[in-house]
């Protein structure tokens, strides 16, 4: 385990915790962006460069911004004095801890994990593109359709209603 791994790990975990626990929503969103960036670094370290860049482009560039916009659009409903934790938050944290213990335990105690050290695999863009156009053509098209549907759907849902409903 190299030092880079630990640094990236600390970055990711820290910003994730911050994203989850800050009071100010915008701070949360920005912490989230930092988390995404950290993850991109992790992908780069794992020799999945394309994915890393895609992560930055999509998550940091689109999703995080989107979240910021949503925060900005839904401001004013909550006062600053209100609690940030929902009732029964203990249960929630407990369950999260349980899940971590279970999953971590599974990982640690697993005998099936491969231990063979491999050479760095090559994942060129060309190869990814080839795969996308041949073997994964169908999921690609479906993703396209999905994105179209999501786009239209989001627009419709968020559209301001005219005379009738409001």
């Amino acid at each position, binding site marked *: *385990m190299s030092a880079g*791994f630990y640094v990236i790990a600390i970055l*990711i975990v820290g910003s*994730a*915790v911050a*994203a*989850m*626990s800050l009071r100010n*929503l915008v701070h*949360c969103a920005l912490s*989230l962006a930092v*988390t995404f960036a950290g993850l991109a670094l*992790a992908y780069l370290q*794992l*020799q*999945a460069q394309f*994915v890393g860049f895609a992560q930055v482009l*999509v*998550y940091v560039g*689109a*999703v995080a911004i*989107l*979240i910021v*916009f*949503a925060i900005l*659009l*839904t401001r004013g*409903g*909550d006062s600053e004095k*209100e*609690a940030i*934790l*929902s*009732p029964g*938050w203990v*249960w*929630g*944290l407990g369950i*999260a*801890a349980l899940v*971590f213990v279970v999953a*971590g335990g599974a*990982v*640690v105690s697993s005998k099936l*994990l*491969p231990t063979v050290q*491999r050479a760095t*695999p090559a*994942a060129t863009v060309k190869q*990814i593109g080839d*795969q*996308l156009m041949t073997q994964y053509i169908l999921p690609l098209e479906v*993703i396209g359709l*999905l994105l179209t549907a*999501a*786009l239209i759907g*989001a627009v419709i*849902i*968020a559209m301001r209603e005219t005379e009738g409903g*409001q």
Partner: protein
Amino acid sequence: MTPLAGYLLLSALLFAIGLGGALARRNAIIVLIGIELMLNAANLNFIAFWRYGPNPEALTGILFVLFSIGIAAAEAAVGLAIIIAVYRHYRTTNLDRITSLKG
């Protein structure tokens, strides 16, 4: 601890953090953020397995993650649109107050 195990633990921790936030915070957008974190943890898991698992030439892990990113984006868009629509109706993003579906 093998690198793979390390990455897996990291992914599990990230997942748990995202889950904890989603379960313990009031604001709907924070819950959405938590969900994004969970998705990212899963992506990290895939890439780790791709890197250290058998048969990395098939690029299965990478492609899966690419699709996952795409879907996550779509999902974030739709989810936020819903939150905005709900906000317009209920004037709040506080999940405690949104109980119309109470049985």
